[in-house]
């Protein structure tokens, strides 16, 4: 009996291959997008964990000097006081064909960790100069003087070496910081007595990649979830249609004495099989998708946060299982309604469309209520913006969900108005019919609205950001030529030459520092019109440039200004080795994850003697001649010289890269939404034959009817786009004013780009047309035959 049931069940799919394809495609797509995004997140997070586990597996605290480095004797001093600390030296160095972060550790004193474990494989070789690097880094390095071995335990872009090797390569006898072994003997003198000038950084806070990149991953997850939800709409459509079409079969099977339990079981088994097949395909697809996106994600994370993420994807069973779990859960949600209806299906009663319509009208009221409540939640969240990143995303989720739930309610109201105003009988029917079929399409339209709103919101955010960023770049990159001296000696030799050949030489000096508890940098600024004329400032005090030049205060970047809540004119900022200085103002500093402070050059040189010049920004009327002279007379390599155009190009390239993923996901989400609409329209088309047949009999051609069907889809799409516009703008505003401030530390003005909307409208129109054209085409071509059947069949 069970076997016969299955055969009956499956024969349906055999006859409705398109439906089956839709169901499988929906499930596979939902799984693919969700698991793909999760794969990206998992990979990146694994990379952060690798980076943190390198120095200590249990999470060791760090001891840091405010200057960012300390004499090696501080290590011996603390050891001789009984503290189990281990020295670490980190620094950037050219190795082979690339620049890497050298991480020098002392394996004998290091707390247990991935790095020391690697070193212990061949301790003698390690202290003699063997190093370890990620295979990807090894490829980037090519050949170098170091004996390097591959290890996935080392973050991408870093090279693990003995501290002695690191000191030799970085030409220093100092160390960066100390790791504090989590297990210390009892009875030691407290650290604040033994080393009062060293700051203890609790485990996990030193490497703040997790925190810095959280926004990025939340962003990806949100997109993944959105795509998943949209994919489920497709599944829901397909399962719903299959149920409707098999209603008669179910009834017959029940009437033949098949127990409800067996029928339920068969339906569950069927869905489970589909979920597993489609889920597996989705995982493969998701992995492919993630592999395609991974290089861009890695570049984004490296460019934006300096996070060491490899560009290649490892297979991780964790996300695969999680993805499959989501598929099963999603299928259960999408198919749950069908099961519920199966249990409530009277054995021999005809369909009762009126009851269903009433139920859907009641549902609409409930939906409006929920939408209102969620809108209220969003409003409350929006009025209390101090909740942090998670609250920001909660606000977005509530607002989007409220908007999505409101879509059928609002569309119904709009169609009802149109119906009342319609004159001709056909127009009247058109609107009435659209409204009547709205419940069947509302899920797909909600999905479309979400996708469109996300497109508008993210597009507006990116475009606003780009516009602001370009203006800012023009102001920021005023120097015609930038020169990177190879070392301090070359800098010293270059300076007089440059002074004679240019209108202005603006040296760039920098130290690493912890500012208001955040990793950051202190820069020196030479008093020059270049800065006075061009740097846009946020909340500057009066005579800000004069006071800065006089060494009376400090400028901070917007990130630090917002995160630390600094008030120019009122607050002071502590810099390493200096008394706290008044904050004079803030400046935009887009694309930089670090806190930054700027003080006058003389003050910097007094406070941090010996800090080398890292770059010269040069003002000149004839950049090409200057570049030629630098190359000819000093033999500077092309890599050491960038002109303005190159610098801008580079900055814009980094900027564009930042949003590659966002845009890719945007397009995918819109595509999935179009597919959801397609699934819903195909479903609907099957049910609508009996609704359209009378019109045909009354003298409308199938062609006319098909045209009306297309028009209806377009009108619904257009109305949905209309609803999506304000939602998208709200989304953009939340992204710019809440999420960006929380995630990156800068706030941007919202700019509106109607041209982009027109383009989106075009794309959306095409997507809707594409979705509606197959059912319409079928109606047109096979219309008469199908419509005739419409009179004969009971549905």
């Amino acid at each position, binding site marked *: 009996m069970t076997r016969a049931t299955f055969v009956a069940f499956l024969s349906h799919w055999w006859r409705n291959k398109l439906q089956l394809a839709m169901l499988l495609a929906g499930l596979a797509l939902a799984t693919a997008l969700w698991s793909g995004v999760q794969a990206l997140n998992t990979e990146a997070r694994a990379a952060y964990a690798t980076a943190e586990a390198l120095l200590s597996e249990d999470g060791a605290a760090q001891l840091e000097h405010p200057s960012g480095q300390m004499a*090696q*004797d501080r*290590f*011996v001093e603390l*050891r*001789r*006081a*009984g503290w*189990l600390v281990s020295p670490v030296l980190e620094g950037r160095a050219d190795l082979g064909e690339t620049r890497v972060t050298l991480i020098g550790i*002392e394996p*004998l*004193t290091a707390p247990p960790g991935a790095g020391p474990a690697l070193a*212990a*494989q*061949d*301790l*003698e*070789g390690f*202290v003699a100069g063997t190093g370890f690097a990620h295979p990807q880094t090894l490829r980037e390095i090519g050949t170098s003087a170091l004996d390097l071995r591959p290890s996935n335990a080392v973050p991408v872009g870093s090279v693990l070496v*003995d*501290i*002695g090797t690191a*000191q030799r390569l970085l030409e220093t*006898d100092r160390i960066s910081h100390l790791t504090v072994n989590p*297990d210390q*003997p*009892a*009875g030691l003198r407290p650290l604040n007595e033994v080393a009062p000038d060293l700051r203890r950084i609790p485990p996990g806070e030193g490497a703040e990649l997790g925190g810095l990149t959280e926004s990025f991953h939340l962003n990806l997850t949100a997109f993944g979830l959105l795509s998943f939800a949209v994919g489920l709409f497709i599944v829901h459509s397909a399962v719903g249609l299959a149920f409707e079409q098999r209603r008669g079969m179910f009834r017959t099977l029940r009437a033949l004495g098949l127990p409800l339990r067996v029928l339920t079981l068969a339906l569950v088994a069927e869905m489970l099989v589909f979920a597993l097949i489609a889920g597996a395909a989705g995982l493969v697809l998701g992995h492919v998708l993630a592999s395609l996106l991974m290089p861009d994600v890695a570049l984004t994370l490296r460019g934006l946060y300096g996070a060491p993420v490899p560009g290649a994807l490892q297979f991780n069973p964790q996300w695969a299982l999680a993805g499959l779990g989501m598929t099963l859960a999603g299928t259960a949600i999408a198919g749950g309604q069908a099961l519920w209806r199966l249990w409530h299906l009277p054995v021999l009663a005809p369909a009762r469309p009126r009851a269903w319509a009433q139920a859907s009208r009641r549902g609409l009221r409930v939906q409006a209520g929920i939408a209102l409540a969620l809108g209220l939640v969003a409003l409350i969240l929006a009025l209390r913006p101090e909740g942090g990143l998670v609250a920001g995303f909660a606000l977005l989720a509530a607002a989007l969900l409220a908007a999505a739930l409101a879509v059928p309610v609002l569309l119904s109201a709009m169609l009802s108005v149109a119906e009342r105003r319609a004159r001709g009988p056909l127009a009247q029917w058109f609107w009435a019919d659209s409204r009547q079929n709205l419940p069947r399409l509302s899920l797909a339209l909600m999905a479309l609205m979400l996708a469109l709103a996300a497109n508008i919101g993210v597009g507006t955010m990116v475009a606003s950001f780009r516009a602001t960023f370009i203006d800012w770049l023009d102001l920021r990159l005023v120097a015609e030529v930038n020169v990177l001296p190879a070392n301090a000696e070359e800098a010293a030799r270059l300076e007089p030459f440059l002074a004679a050949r240019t209108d202005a030489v603006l040296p760039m000096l920098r130290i690493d520092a912890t500012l208001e508890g955040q990793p950051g940098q202190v820069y020196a600024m030479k008093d020059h019109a270049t800065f006075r004329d061009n740097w846009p400032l946020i909340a500057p005090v009066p005579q800000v440039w004069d006071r800065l030049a006089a060494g009376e205060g400090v400028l901070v970047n917007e990130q630090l200004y917002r995160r630390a809540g600094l008030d120019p004119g009122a607050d002071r900022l502590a810099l390493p080795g200096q008394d706290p200085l008044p904050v004079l103002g803030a400046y935009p500093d887009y694309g930089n994850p670090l806190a930054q402070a700027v003080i006058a050059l003389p003050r910097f040189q007094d406070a941090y003697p010996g800090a080398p010049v890292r770059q010269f920004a040069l003002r000149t009327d004839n950049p090409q001649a200057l570049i030629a002279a630098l190359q000819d007379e000093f033999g500077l390599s092309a890599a050491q010289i960038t002109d303005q155009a190159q610098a801008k190009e580079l900055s814009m390239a980094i900027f564009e890269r930042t949003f590659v993923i966002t845009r890719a996901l945007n397009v995918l989400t819109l595509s999935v939404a179009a597919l959801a609409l397609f699934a819903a329209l195909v479903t609907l088309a099957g049910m609508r034959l009996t609704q359209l047949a009378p019109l045909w009999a009354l003298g409308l051609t199938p062609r006319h009817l098909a045209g009306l069907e297309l028009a209806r889809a377009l009108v619904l799409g257009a109305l949905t786009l209309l609803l999506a516009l304000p939602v998208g703008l709200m989304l953009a505003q939340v992204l710019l004013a809440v999420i960006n401030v929380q995630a990156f530390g800068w706030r941007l003005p919202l700019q509106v780009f109607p041209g982009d909307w027109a383009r989106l409208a075009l794309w959306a129109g095409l997507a809707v047309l594409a979705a509606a054209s197959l059912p319409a085409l079928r109606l047109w071509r096979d219309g008469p035959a199908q419509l005739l059947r419409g009179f004969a069949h009971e549905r």
Partner: protein
Amino acid sequence: MNARAMVITLASLLLGAPYPGTAQGFAGLGTDAEGFAVPQRGTPLAFPKDHGAHPDYRIEWWYLTATLDGAGGQEYGVQWTLFRSALAPSEAEGWDSPQVWMGHAGLTTAEAHFSAERFARGGTGQAGGTIDPFVAHIDDWHMISRAAEGADAYDALRAHARGADFSFDLDFDAEGPLVKHGDDGYSMKSAEGQASYYYSQPFYRVTGTLHLPDGPVEVTGQGWLDREWSSQPLAEDQAGWDWVSLSFDDGHRMMGFQLRGTQTFTAGTWITPSGDPTPLPDGALRFTPLAHTQIDARRVPTSWRIEWPEGELDIETEPLNPRAWMDLSISYWEGPLRFSGSHSGRGYLEMTGY
């Protein structure tokens, strides 16, 4: 000796390189194949120079043990050791130094045994052994001279070490002279010619404080210092050793060991109360296990019968705590004992290779 040639093992364990089997038969050359100095018979020890480190030898240690009594009659044992192991026969500043240092500390009560270890590389000041003033240290663990001006640095010492849950501060005051083992400090370790330089100070009176989880304990007792350095201490077939230092109730002292191999090699020194040594050649001593203790997967002979027929010595030892296992990167048994039989007294036992 403490035959603590395991520092060689340490070197190979720690540094991952298989230790090249000590080449035999070139004792006369003065150096081995890798350029390390090799002990020479007839080279007199010189003090205070030999109290300090010998970086041109592969391995070296400063080894203090003490049998102690608390005011309430409880017995304790304390061990303080600093090992040096060289990757190359030289010293250099900073991280280029080929010297590796390891500290071991142990504290034994009848109920418990505490141990701790430390590692360091030479060249930075984290560990070392210097002569004037005498300091041997690793991190905050130290053994420093308290001797008066002009006296031998080892006449008076202070030792400190600290583990996760214990520490000790002890003063060692010598009541007799330094004692050279073997042939005026040249100590044979196998029939094939392996040897080390080896001398001791076996006559310490000890006072000080032990810090235990239950609180501080004032203690007094007897102590023993071993100094040994070498480049080739063990023959290839030698798997481990059993070593004792004994303080007799009548004021005599004795050091004895057996190296277990295809052929057991024994040696020892009988020391009169005034510090005159008599070397005991291979075969003079006989070690017989009497009772074993199961420690994890190991079966360790913690009670011994030791015979020196020629000296009419026949004693049986009893450990204060049979579970005095040093559970460290390199593990072995080391703890205080009492002995009885033809003679009675207290001492320290070390056993490796189980």
